[in-house]
């Protein structure tokens, strides 16, 4: 595999915010915030952490593309170098 393990990174960062959630059991196409019970502040924290790790701006205007686990993973894959 080339490039960073984005899936692993996403799972790790989500685990820091929602440690009690079994990420293998969530609906990866559904709203991440419902699936992992995260609020606006948690989501901002997640975006901050991912943005830092991947040097991505993660603009607020793109939040709609980051709504689900799959969507967010796809977004990272598209933008991460």
């Amino acid at each position: 595999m080339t490039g960073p393990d984005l899936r692993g990174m996403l799972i790790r960062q989500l685990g820091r915010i929602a440690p009690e959630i079994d990420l293998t059991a969530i609906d990866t196409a559904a709203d991440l915030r419902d699936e992992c019970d995260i609020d606006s502040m948690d989501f901002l924290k997640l975006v901050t952490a991912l943005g830092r790790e991947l040097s991505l701006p993660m603009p607020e205007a793109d939040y709609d593309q980051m709504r689900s686990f799959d969507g967010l993973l796809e977004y990272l894959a598209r933008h991460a170098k």
Partner: protein
Amino acid sequence: MTPFLMPSLGADMEDGTLVEQLIAPGERVTRGDIIAAVETQKGTIEIEAFEDGFLDAWLVPLGAKVPVGTPLAMIRSSEKASDTPDPQPQPDMPQPVDPAPPPLPPEVPQPVDPETLPPRPEDPQPSPTPAPDFPDELRQRVTPAARRRAAQTGFDLKALGTKRTITLDDLAPPQTETALPPLSAMRRAIADAMSRSKREIPHYYLSDSIDLTATEAFIAKHNAGLAPEQRLLAAVLYLRAMARAVQKFPEFNGTYEQGQFTPSRHAHIGMAINLRGGGLVAPALQDADQGSLDDLMARLRDLVERVRRGRFRARELSGPTITLTSLGDRGVRGITGVIFPPQVAIVGIGSPCWTAVVRDGQVRACRSAAITLAADHRVSDGHRGAGFMRAVINQLQKPEAL
């Protein structure tokens, strides 16, 4: 010399367990320093010194559960230990309810040898005791989650030594038959406060909706091009709008105790924060009318972070003058709060959504959120409540002025 007391962190708190002594006897303390941590039903609370001086001696051992008002330590004003001791007990000092040594509750992990107990505050203290060695426990670093687990299971943390930070992984999971589920203490605290509220406070309720078009446009513009850690959340604007509005409506900002309402000069706005795994706390964002929005956002971020780690400061817990409960962008249309005694009002803001509004005879799509006020009829009426709500709504129509 002044005693440093187990503080009351809310009307529902009767006692607390001293879990950290962060200053050694003889060390200097400065007003605002965190000198101890106390485990309560609401989590681990950091207690700050309220005056400058030197810590003379700890009066309560680590792990002891003592009633509110019990002297935890003595603070002397000068460095030398021969400071003339004040007569004790001080006349205006709340004294511990029970003069007997506090029984160690079964869930407290640290049995303390009675020989090593510092003198009780009631004992005559002819001369301050020489500074004992800094006990090992002081150096032991334990995560709040591990400390809670240890308290639940009765595990003695000392057995793990002080070489490294103790985490949840070091402790066996609690046995479900014997251990208290972690939620129950928190749930009991919520139940006590809310039952008291519903029993004592004659609530009245008002509702309206806020046009959030201007607020959301302002936030989008502000956040565009900013790194995530610098972005604002709508909650910050709600807090600031409330902090401004209470200035003209003081009867919603303060405390009602012993038949009397005391308005507050400060806008310490309690923010209801949901805890993972259940439970809720509403610590204060102090002086929410002060500083820039960016500054308020930084303080909110810090507060939420610490609350989620189960660690916040005494004055944040005891100080709110009014509370905001906001469901963020992923909740339901509206929320009507229950007032946290001894406060007299709580504002609820639901999740923003698209609504059809009629303006100038035209139907338009507009972003809006439901806003509610629950307030105390002993202090105010619906007429003034409506004025207060309109003031909050109006503030949010001019977000650039916040």
